[in-house]
């Protein structure tokens, strides 16, 4: 007991010493007390349903508590109240079984209608495949040649409190999902590893991403804007750090964006082909590798390469990182089944993979002297 006590005491002491956050609230989205109305017809209906339920519940609660407090005030022994004798009444008991039942039916009818509305399965205008993985989202436009990963953009220094937190702290990503307004957008949601949940409150869409299965949800945003959400199902260590940002654009602007993205992806592919024939120097590879490592690998393998014993393996001195180079490349490209180690073939360019492999094989005293080039990665990926 004393131990628990002192533990709690220590925590309290630590708390008192830490300064209360003094972030100014002028630019931060003001806190709200209630659910958002959102920007789709469905989300507005969900909000109305929520308010209806809330009001009914408040009325019921207020009724019950009023009777209770009246009784507590008037039927006190100190006011000389004498106890009555009744202890049952079939009529009353039937009444308060039947009346709540009727109220419930009154609630269930609109709820059912709304649910059926939400599950509309007609043909969409745009389909996006949303794939969750530890701990980022991948978006693939099924009708266009566009796909990309979307990761937390908040700097680690902000999270650690070394620099002031930005306005969209933890709710910002490097590449947001872009959708057109006024169009039916269908989200096919799935996962590569554990269960995640794709939630954008402004669309009233929350859909679990189950590994090996697809679920669908849809939204039609009425207004252009930036809508933020978060992963809603515990998915491991960085669960709190995989936000969702959706930008809704007018259809014309959206079309421009699509064209631009397609061109960019073409260009990137061409660039990748060009880089295949180029060789990086050790310095180039190490500096690019370090950058890529910190952005993609350090969350699990830790910036010092030591991992988290028992959870994420160390790279420092590991057999794969100091000896088995083909395996090392294979793991980077394809990932490891049944672990948080995912495939980076699509997340990074071949030269980035080459650089990060080089970095891992030479940093933290893994001094193998190996220099891996983009063409080695290409060979492993496409089997030459």
């Amino acid at each position, binding site marked *: 007991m004393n131990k628990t006590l002192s533990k709690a005491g220590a925590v309290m002491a630590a708390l008192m010493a830490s300064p209360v956050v003094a972030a100014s609230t002028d630019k931060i989205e003001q806190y709200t007390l209630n659910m958002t109305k959102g920007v789709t017809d469905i989300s507005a209906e969900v909000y109305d349903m929520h308010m209806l339920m809330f009001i009914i519940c408040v009325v019921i609660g207020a009724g019950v508590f009023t009777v209770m407090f009246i009784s507590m005030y008037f039927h006190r022994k100190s006011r000389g109240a004498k106890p009555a004798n009744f202890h049952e009444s079939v009529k009353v008991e039937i009444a308060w079984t039947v009346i709540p039942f009727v109220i419930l039916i009154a609630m269930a009818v609109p709820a059912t209608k709304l649910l059926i509305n939400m*599950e509309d*399965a*007609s*043909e*969409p205008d745009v*389909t996006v*495949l949303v*794939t969750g*993985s530890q701990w980022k989202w991948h978006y693939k436009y*099924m009708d266009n040649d566009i796909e990309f990963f979307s990761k937390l953009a908040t700097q680690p220094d902000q999270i650690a409190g070394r620099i002031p937190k930005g306005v969209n702290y933890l709710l910002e990503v490097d590449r947001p999902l872009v959708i057109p307004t006024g169009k039916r957008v269908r989200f*096919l949601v*799935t996962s*590569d*590893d554990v269960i995640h949940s794709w939630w954008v409150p402004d669309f009233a869409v929350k859909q679990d991403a*189950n*590994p*090996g*299965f*697809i*679920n*669908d949800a849809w939204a039609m945003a009425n207004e252009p804007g930036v809508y933020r959400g978060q992963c809603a199902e515990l998915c491991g260590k960085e669960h709190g750090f995989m936000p969702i940002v959706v930008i809704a654009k007018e259809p014309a602007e959206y079309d421009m964006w699509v064209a631009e993205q397609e061109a960019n992806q073409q260009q990137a592919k061409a660039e990748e082909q060009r880089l295949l024939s180029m060789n990086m120097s050790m310095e180039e590879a190490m500096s690019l590798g370090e950058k890529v490592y910190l952005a993609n690998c350090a969350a699990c393998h830790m910036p010092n390469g030591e*991992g988290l014993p028992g959870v994420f*393996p*160390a790279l420092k001195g*590991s057999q*794969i990182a100091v000896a088995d180079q*083909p*395996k090392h490349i*294979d*793991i980077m*490209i*394809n*990932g*490891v*089944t*049944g*672990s948080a*180690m*995912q*495939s980076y073939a699509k997340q990074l360019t071949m030269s980035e993979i080459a650089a990060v492999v080089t970095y891992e094989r030479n940093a933290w005293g893994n001094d193998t002297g190996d220099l891996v080039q983009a063409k080695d990665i290409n060979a*492993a*990926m*496409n*089997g030459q």
Partner: protein
Amino acid sequence: MSKQEVQTNNSKMVMKLVAIVFGMFGFGFALVPLYDVLCDALGINGKPSNVAAIYESVEIDKSRLITVDFITRINTGMPWQFSTQTRQVKVHPGEMSQVDFLVKNPAKVSIVGQAIPSVSPGPAAIYMNKTECFCFEQQTLQAGEEMLMPMRFYVDPQLPKDITYFTVQYTLYNVTPSVEVVAMNRG
């Protein structure tokens, strides 16, 4: 009641209750096949049947045209390339059609793959009748091997009227006997 009687009564009752406990433990496991049966019957969670359907010459419902989308995915740890030749088909319920999938194993070793189908919206799953599918069994590709895998199916004419559109996803898993994989996990 004597003390003796009470004790006999007690032990009888304990036996019954212990039997219930074991029964419920078994029931927990019985939920597994039960769940599969329910999934097959009701299409919970969008799992289509993993046994070949037999195409009975059903009447083709010309009045409806159903759009079926195909998505291919590769799971972590699987080096194969996997794509569909046809991203979307429009079919009348009852009409037979074929979609081909291309797989390639670029790795230097032979690999065993298993494709897992999933249908969304889930209730459509039980109306997706496949007479032939690569997902019914594991597939082995030698190093560098390429293969065209056909899938033949028809949509059951009993498909509910409100479903006009559904998506079939295949996720390819690496199920190569996993001694090596386990070793890799331990880093």
